[in-house]
């Protein structure tokens, strides 16, 4: 193995179902149900998935939902905005934990 992340591994996802196929099937049914159009369109869901893919920094998911967003009719302007949403929430989450620093510091300092 030359890299931890191999592009072709994404296509091998179903191999996870080799062990405990019952759990794999439950997951896939749930996954397909979640990603189908509902109150949100498939285009909106693909953009959310793309943003989450960046937040969890999963190369497979970024590959899959770049394609997924384009196949849902989205464009790089919308996709970039979605990534900014992930970045803003991650950045905000980092900063808001600064309050814990302030609290912790307050507790141990005079």
């Amino acid at each position, binding site marked *: 193995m030359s890299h931890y992340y191999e592009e072709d591994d994404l*296509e091998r996802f179903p191999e996870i179902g080799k062990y405990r196929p019952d759990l794999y099937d439950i997951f896939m049914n749930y996954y397909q149900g979640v990603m189908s*159009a509902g109150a949100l*369109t*498939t*285009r909106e869901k693909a953009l959310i998935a793309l943003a989450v893919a960046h937040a969890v920094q999963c190369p497979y998911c970024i590959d899959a939902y770049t*394609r997924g967003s*384009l*196949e*849902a*009719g989205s*464009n790089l*302007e919308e996709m970039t905005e979605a990534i900014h949403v992930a970045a803003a929430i991650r950045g905000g989450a980092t900063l808001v934990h600064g309050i814990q620093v302030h609290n912790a510091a307050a507790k141990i300092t005079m």
Partner: protein
Amino acid sequence: MLPFARKLEDLGYPDLKADRINILQVNLGWRCNQACKHCHLLAGPQRPEQMARDTIEEIIRVVKRWSIPTVDLTGGAPELNPHYEYLVERLDQLGTHILTRCNLTILLEPGKEHLPEFFRDHRVELVCSLPYYQEDLVDRLRGAGVFQKSLDALRRLNRVGYGEADPDLKLNLMYNPAGAYLPPEEAALEAVYRRELAERHQIRFHRLLTLLNMPIGRFKEFLERSKNYERYMGKLVSGFNPATVAGLMCRSLISVAWDGRLFDCDFNQALDLPLLPGLPQTIREFDPEALATRPIRLGDHCYGCTAGLGSSCGGKLAEG
């Protein structure tokens, strides 16, 4: 990859056959004022191929003799053929439903400014290429400045009544992906196109059709150059949808090349795969009995018509 013919055989279609001829699709030539990156025919301004007048007369004879209900004019830019207007006038006199696949920018070429009124006067249904509703993507695919020219052309068509309430003046738009991925769901994308074109550009249209990029011609060159060919074909093969087979356009259409030769579709024409041996091979030999139930010549590019919700000159083939 399982050959397409074998795939159909496994599904109980040992030899896919046509079941009627409702549409005569006529390719008037490969000359075009554009040279789009996704063109399956490698059409462009330098292409010399043009349908000659005697072949046009044969088309008119066949449509009249066999009462073909619809003639679908394509190219290249079909309007660049010097006999385009003559053919449309004659077909209109016969009461034929006429479609033209229009690249929009042709309406702005010198000597072609009359086309919106000409289309209207002959009730030509238009299928116009507009692969997205944003400038950068359209210009990347079709050439610098094409998006703005396309908007200008669409406004001209709206002004003469296309895209409005009159059901005889149909203005349909054609989307195709800008790369190695499948088209979106047609109705969802149509709603976005309608909103964006109306709000930003005050443009109206009837339907949006989505067409998948066939892995042939310039698009195949792109797939190979970008090392996307295997993956794209894998996606088409794994996306095979049996529900698309009944509506495949080759089952109700016959394609006539600029030189009068007959093909099962425009894609087979691009690949120079004529009708199977033993069948009439040119418009001069047109025989509806032999052709209406002919076996179709298949190739692996046919996976492009059966992937997902299917793809055809009339848009998707199956419901989602």
